[in-house]
C-alpha cells in the first residue's frame, strides 16, 4: 500500500490490491500445481516428438542465418577509396575509442600524394575485440567498417585471430557499399 501511495497524485480508488496466492489448501498441497506443470511440459514434448522438424532451431552448419542485416556488426574490414587505395589515414581515432584496446596501428608517411599518413601496419586482435562498433563510429574517413557479414571466425591457434592490414583490406562488404563514403 505505501509503495502505491508514494506517487502522491494516486487517489485511493485507483490503488490496486493484489491478492496473495499460495495460501489456499490447493496451493499448499502443491500436487495440483505439479500436475498443471507436467501438463505443459508433456504438451511440448509430444508436439515436438510428433514433428521434430517443426522445432524452430536452426540446424546451424547446414542452415546459415538469413537475417543478418546491414546494421549487423560482423568482422571488421578496412575500406578502399574509389581509386582502390587505402582509406585509412592512421589518425588513431579507432584505437583511442576502442574499449578493449585491441587495435594496434603503426603510422607511416604516405608516398602516393593523396594524404599525409597511412598505416604501415594495422592489427585487430579479434579475440580481445568486443564488437561494440565504437571504432566504426570514431573513424572520420569511413575507413573501418563492420559490414562484412562474417559472424563466425575460426582458427587453429590464437595467432590466427589477429587480423593484419592485408587481411582486413581483403574482406568485401556484404551489403553493397564497397568503397569508403567519406571522400571522393
Amino acid at each position, binding site marked *: 500500500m505505501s509503495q502505491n501511495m508514494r506517487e502522491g497524485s494516486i487517489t485511493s480508488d485507483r490503488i490496486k490490491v493484489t491478492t496473495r496466492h499460495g495460501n489456499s489448501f490447493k496451493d499448499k498441497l502443491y*500436487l495440483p500445481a*505439479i500436475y498443471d506443470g507436467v501438463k505443459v511440459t508433456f504438451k*511440448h*514434448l509430444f508436439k515436438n516428438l510428433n514433428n521434430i522438424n517443426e522445432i524452430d*532451431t536452426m540446424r546451424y552448419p*547446414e542452415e546459415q542465418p538469413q537475417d543478418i542485416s546491414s546494421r549487423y556488426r560482423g568482422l571488421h574490414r578496412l575500406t578502399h577509396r574509389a581509386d582502390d587505395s587505402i582509406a585509412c589515414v592512421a589518425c588513431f581515432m579507432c584505437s583511442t575509442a576502442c574499449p578493449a584496446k585491441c587495435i594496434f596501428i603503426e603510422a607511416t608517411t604516405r608516398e602516393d600524394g593523396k594524404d599525409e599518413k597511412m598505416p604501415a601496419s594495422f592489427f585487430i586482435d579479434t579475440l580481445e575485440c568486443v564488437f561494440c562498433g565504437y571504432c566504426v563510429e570514431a573513424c572520420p574517413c569511413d575507413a573501418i567498417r563492420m559490414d562484412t557479414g562474417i559472424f563466425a571466425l575460426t582458427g587453429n591457434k590464437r595467432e590466427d585471430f589477429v587480423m593484419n592490414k592485408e587481411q582486413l583490406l581483403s574482406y568485401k562488404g556484404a551489403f553493397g557499399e564497397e568503397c569508403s563514403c567519406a571522400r571522393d
Partner: protein
Amino acid sequence: MTTAAIIIAVAAFALGALLALLTIPILVWLERRVAGLVQDRLGPNRTNIGGFRLGGVVQSFADVVKLLLKEEYYPSHIKNARWLFMLAPIITFVAALLAFMAIPFADTLVINGESLRISPLPIDFGVFWYMAISSIGVLGVIFGGWLSHNKYSLLGAARAGSMVVSYELPLGLSILAFIITYNTIDFNAMVQWQSGTFFGFLPSWGILVQPLASIILIVALFAETNRNPFTVAEGESEIVAGFMTEYTAMKFAMYFMGEYVAMNTASAVIITMVFGGYQIPWVSTQILLENFSVFALLLMILIPIIVMVLIRWMRKNNTVRPSVSTDGGRNFETKVLTFTLVGMTLFIEAILFYLVFLDENFLANALAVTLFQIVVFVVKLMLFNIFFILIRWTVPRFRYDQVQKIGWYYLLPLALANIILTAIVVIGVSL
C-alpha cells in the same frame, strides 16, 4: 540345482546387470533429449557412428570417452590415500547397483515343478534388501564430501546426510503401509497381489489401493535419489556441485552414473510396489498361461500395429528439413532400421505362430509369458524414468529449509497416519 535353474539364474543376473548398466547411457541421453524437446530445442542429435545416430544416443558413449581421457586430478592433501578418494564414488555406485538386483523382472517361472525367480538376486526379502542397501549409498556421498576438504563439498555432504535422515523415515513408513497391505516383504509376492482386482473392476495396483502411501513413496524416492525438485546436496546455485566439487574424470563419472542407476532403481521400486510391476492391469500370470493362445493371437495382431506406427514415426521424423541439403545418412539409417524392425517382427510372429498352432509345449508358453513380462517391465521402467526426467524439467527447486519442512511437517505425519488407517482397515477387513 538343475541345469534349468542355473541357466535361468545366469540369464536373470545378466539381464539385471544389463538393465542397470546399459540404461545409464540411455538415461543420460534421454535426459538431454527430453529436456530439449520440452524446451522446444533439439538436444544432442548429431553424434553418429558411420551415419547411425539412433536419435543421438551415441552421444553418451562419446561422453564416456571424453570422461576417460580427462585429467586425473586429486586435491593436494590427498597425498597417497588416493584409493580412499576413489572409494567414495564407488560406494555410491555399487550401492545403487546392488539395490536394483532384488527387483523381479517377471513372475516366478515353474520348470519341472521347480520355482525359479526371474530376479538377479533370488531372495524373498527384497524390500528389506532394498531399504538396507540403498541407504548405504549416501555413505559414499558423505565420505567423498568429507574427504574433499572443501567447504562446498562438506556442505553438500552434510545436506545429503540430513536428507537421508529426514526422508528415510517417510520412505520407510510408507513402505510399511505397503507391507501391511500386501502382507509380504517379497517384491514378487507384492506384484502378484497387485494382479488382482478390487471393487470388482479396478486393478489393485498400489496407487489405487494405497494412494497416500504411493505419493509419499514417490516423493521420498525423488528426494532419496537427489533428483529435482530436491537437489539440495548438489545445488549448483548455492554450493557449486556439492560433494562432487573436487571430483574429476572417471571419479566424477562414477558419482554421475551412480545417480542415474539410483534413479533407475527408484523407478523400478516404484513400479514394483505401486504400478503393478511386470503385470499389465487385470491380467495375472495365471490368466496369461491358461489363455495362452488368445493372448498370443492378440500379440500377433498388436505387435505389427505398434511396429507400423513406430516405422511411420521414424520415416516422418528421421529426416531433415527441405532447406537442408545433406541428410547425413538419415535416409540410409531409416531404411536399415525399418528392415531390422520388420525382420524382428516377422521373427516374433513366426515364433508365436509356432507356439499357438504347431506346438502344445507348456514350458515354451511359460517362457514366452516370462519374456513378455520382462518387456512390459522394461517399458514401464523407461516410462517412469521419463516421468522422473519430466518432473526435473517441470518443477523448480525447493529451498533447503522447504525440503526439510516438507519431510518433517507433512510427509512424516501423513505416513504415520496412513499406517494407522491401513492397520485399522486391514484388521477390519480380516475380522
